[in-house]
Each structure stands twice: as structure tokens, then as C-alpha cells.
């Protein structure tokens, strides 16, 4: 009797400490989460704030006293936001298509076709991942300049074919699809290209989704390469457009318009995130450690 009472007490106290500690942890994590979210709240609030046109309001507030849409109107009239957005989309779609095609084709070949030198190709390709793009960007600019392709979107689309991370990831993914599909298709007389696109590609849904998300995030948020390669304002991407607008006007001027442009710039990607958050988070966990 006494023994069970002691045991009960121990179990209860253990449960109790566990509850206390998990409440504490939740509280601590919630504080951190608040720090993650506050910048967004301030940004959105300022973008609608009637008093923030010339100076940020004091004391800082997270809900405007006087709501206005004028900041957005001014943002759209001063910065060609829609044009930039369209340009960014154009760059992203082309990059995604070319990278995906190239990655799946080479991933399939490296995984399933036993051709001469495939290990050498894989090794060489992987070793290029050690070359940072920043190291080659100067020469790459002059290469495109000589080809007459500087200040054009070909400078984004053509290099997209060398998507080594995608190739590697596609190879690993296709490794897990049985060889027997290819073998029976070969007996039926299908060519490798047809096997790659008609038999294996439809089975790569998860792979395509993951790579598309990563490529879109990368392309949409890219800044340094557009800064170097694009010179005519009507070709600017969204990041470059709003960055140069702020840069040329002085960073501290007109906070409301600046925040309006920033909100517009992150909205497409936030919408994407809201719908695909589970998926994005998982694809990061999946691909991140393999890189």
C-alpha cells in the first residue's frame, strides 16, 4: 500500500515536472516565434500607414492610426512593379523548365544507362559544386557580353542547364525506381529518350515538386547575377528593381513606399509558402543534408 502510494507520487511528480518543462519550452519557443513574426507585422503595418510617408512613426506601432492605400498606389506609379514581377516570373519559369529537364535527363542516364565514363561525369559534375558562382561571375558576364547575350534572359536560362544539385538528386531518386521498367520497355523497342520521358518522368512527381520549389525560391530571390547582367530598366527583375529604387533614392527615404514594395515583393512567395509549407519544409529537410 505504502509502496504503491510512493510510486503513484513519483509518477505524478514526474508527469508534473514534464508538464512544467514543456510549458516553459513552449513559452520560450513562442517568444522566439514572436521575434520571427514582428518584422513582418511592422512591415505590413508601415506599408498601410498614412503617417509613414516621409518618416517612420514614433513610437513604433504595429497597427497604423490611419489606414491608407496611397502607399501602394505610389509604389505602383513610382516603380514598375508589375513589369518587374512579370520579368521575374519569366526568368523563373525558364530557369525551372530548363533545369528540370536537364536534371531529369542526366539523372536518368547516370542512374539507369550503363555507359562508358558515367562515373567520371558524375564525379566531375559534383566537383563543380565547390566552385562558388561568385568566383566565376566576372568572366561569365564577359562571356555573355561577347555572345551578345548580356542584358537578356538567356544569361539566366542557358546556365540553368548546369544544375548539378538537381542532377545528383534526380539520380538518387531514379535509383529507387526499379530497372525492370526500362528493361521491358527496351524489349518493346522504346528508345532511351522515350523511356526517360514517358516512363520514368511521370513517376518523378515528388522529385519535380521539390526541385521546382527550390528553383523558384532561388530564382525569385536571386540578386547578384541580375545586378551584374541586366542593364536596361525595362528588363529588371523584381529584386533588382526594388533594390535599385531604394538604393538610388537613399535607403532611409519614404519608408511607407519602400515597405509597400517589399510587401508586394514577398507576397507571391508567401502565398506559395502558405499553400506548400509542409512540402517546402520537408523538401528542405530532405535535400539539405544531401547537398
Amino acid at each position, binding site marked *: 500500500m505504502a509502496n504503491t502510494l510512493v510510486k503513484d507520487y513519483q509518477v505524478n511528480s514526474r508527469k508534473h515536472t514534464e508538464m512544467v518543462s*514543456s510549458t516553459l519550452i513552449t513559452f*520560450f*519557443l513562442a517568444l*522566439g516565434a514572436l*521575434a*520571427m513574426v514582428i*518584422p*513582418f507585422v*511592422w*512591415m505590413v503595418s508601415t506599408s498601410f500607414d498614412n503617417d509613414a510617408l516621409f518618416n*517612420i*512613426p*514614433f*513610437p513604433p506601432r504595429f497597427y497604423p492610426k490611419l489606414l491608407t492605400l496611397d502607399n501602394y498606389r505610389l509604389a505602383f506609379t513610382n516603380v514598375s512593379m508589375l513589369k518587374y514581377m512579370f520579368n521575374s516570373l519569366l526568368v523563373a519559369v525558364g530557369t525551372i523548365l530548363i533545369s528540370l529537364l*536537364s536534371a531529369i*535527363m*542526366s539523372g536518368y*542516364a547516370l542512374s539507369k*544507362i*550503363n*555507359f562508358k565514363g*558515367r562515373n567520371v*561525369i558524375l564525379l566531375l559534375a559534383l566537383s*563543380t559544386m565547390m566552385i*562558388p558562382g*561568385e*568566383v*566565376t*561571375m*566576372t*568572366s561569365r*558576364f*564577359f*562571356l555573355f557580353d561577347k555572345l551578345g547575350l548580356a542584358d537578356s534572359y538567356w544569361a539566366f536560362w*542557358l546556365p540553368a*542547364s*548546369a544544375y*548539378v544539385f538537381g542532377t545528383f538528386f534526380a539520380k538518387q531518386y531514379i535509383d529507387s525506381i526499379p530497372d525492370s521498367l526500362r528493361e521491358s520497355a527496351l524489349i518493346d*523497342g522504346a*528508345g*532511351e*529518350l522515350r523511356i526517360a520521358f514517358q516512363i520514368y518522368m511521370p513517376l518523378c512527381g515528388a522529385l519535380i515538386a521539390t526541385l521546382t520549389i527550390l528553383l523558384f*525560391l532561388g530564382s525569385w*530571390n536571386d*540578386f*547578384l547575377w541580375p545586378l*551584374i547582367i541586366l542593364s536596361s530598366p525595362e528588363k529588371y527583375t523584381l*529584386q533588382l528593381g*526594388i533594390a535599385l529604387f531604394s538604393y538610388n533614392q537613399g*535607403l*532611409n527615404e519614404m519608408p511607407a513606399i519602400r*515597405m509597400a*514594395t517589399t510587401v508586394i*515583393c514577398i507576397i507571391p*512567395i508567401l502565398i*506559395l509558402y502558405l499553400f506548400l*509549407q509542409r512540402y517546402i*519544409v520537408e523538401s528542405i*529537410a530532405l535535400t539539405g*543534408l544531401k547537398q
Partner: protein
Amino acid sequence: MNIRNASTIYPVQKKNKLNPFIRRNIAGYLLCSPMILGLLIFVFYPMLQTFIYSFQSTNGISGVLNGVTNYKWIFKDDMFWGALKNTAIMSVMAVLIDIVVCFILASLINSLSYNKGFFKSIYFLPNVVSSVATALLFNFLFYPTNAGVINYFLSFLGIKPVGWLVQPGIAKFSIVLMGLWRSVGYDTILFLAGLQSIPREYYEAAKVDGANGLQRWWHITIPNMKPIFAFMIIMQVIGTLKRFDDVWLIGGVGGNPGGSLQTVVLYIYRNAWISRDVGIASAASVVLFAITLIITIANYRIMNKER
């Protein structure tokens, strides 16, 4: 049934007269060709060109060989050493803070039995925001008066307004904090993936032996996470060596305030596009490449030794 009928049933085999071995090779190369061509033209060739430029006095269009003059120049250039120093300081600061914060966050999230997904989503949210948007936003959050949100909150703790982005001594730290806001979710998720790969039995065995939560964390979690720590450190060191977007937006090509935000990539950019001295920019690029290579190789050596 005669032979003619059979050949009409399998017409493809008749069409392909090539030896299947050669056919397989051709198919392999053909399918890999977009990637191979892309690498040759847009990675290998520019890399080679960068090496060549680095031994030339050139504006990128025409140039003359000048031996190792460019290298001599950059190693005598205070601004280059400054850039190296700034990059290294920011890199070390960013990696240390990021690894500690993200590992603790991941451990805390992992210990919860509910709300895991919620916290993952919230912490990851800033990661989808571009570096440009982050810099524009934090430029106001770090406002040097109490109108800036961060200084305003600190004022409740009795701290006087800090010139986050205008004081040379502090600007690097502010940039690192700004980067942390963006990277924290990504790295926490990677750590979480690592934490979940540690076998459950270890913890259960330790529980039976009477180890408490903190002891289990210290004696099981941390030793088992070693390879992931190594991976994260190397990825982040290499990533932070390439810092450009945020320092360019906040500090301009000069890396202001007072050149304290001048990084190596900024130095490359400035020499290539402001002073149009592509030779100098290329020499600096080669040095950056060498540093990346040394760090990567050293890391592999250490990792292999541990195994």
C-alpha cells in the same frame, strides 16, 4: 507463320542496326549533354578565364599579360586585407551564433509532443523572404533612434539607442543578426532532421539507467550529432564567405559604415564594375576560390580522420 511476319511485328529491332553497346553510350551522352555543355561553357570555361584574367591587366575586353602583378597588388592592398578580415569576422560570428541558436531551438522543438509543425512553419517563414527585402526591412528595424523597433524595445530595458547599422563597430554584428533572422528556420529544420535520425533505443536505454532529459541531451544527442555539426559548419562557412547582397544594400560599394562591411565579394564587384579592373577582380576571385577549396578539403580530412 513465316519470318516476314515476325519482322513486321518487331520493326524497331530491324531499324536500329547499331551495336547495342554503342547505342547505349550514345544515349547516355545525349541525355547528359545539356548538363555537360552547361558545365563546360558556364562553369569550366569562366573558371579558366578567371585564371587567365588574373594574370592580365584587362578590362575584360582586351588585355595584356602582366604576370603576378595583380596578386602582388591585392596582397598589398589594405582594402583587400580589410575585406578578408571583415568577411572572416562576420563568417565566424554568423556560424557560431547560428549553430548554437538553431541547435538549441531544434532540440526544444524536438522535445515537444505537440505544436512541432506550428513552430517549424513559423521559424521557417523568414527564410522565403529575399535578401533584398530583408535588408530593406531591417534598415528600418535597426533605425538608430528610438523610432526603430529594436531600439524601442531595448529602451524598456533602459538601453540607450544603438546605432546598429551606422556605427562601424556594431554594423557587422547587426548584419549577422539580420542574416540569422532569415537562416534560423532553415538550419533548425536541418538540425531537426538530424535529431530525428538518432535511434530511439539510445534514449530509452538511458532512461532506464535513470538519466534525466538534460543528461540525455548532453551524452546522447550531442555526440550523435557530430557529423551534422561538421556538415552545417562547413556549409555555413562557405555560404557566409560569399556575403554580398545585404552588405551592398546597407553599405553600398564602399561597405559603409567606414568600410566595416567591405567583404571579399564586394571587393570583387567593386573592382570589376566600378573601377573596371577585371584583372584585380579576377585575382581576388581566385583567392576566394582557393580559400573555399582549402576549407572544404580540410573539412574532409578532419571528417575522415574521425571516422
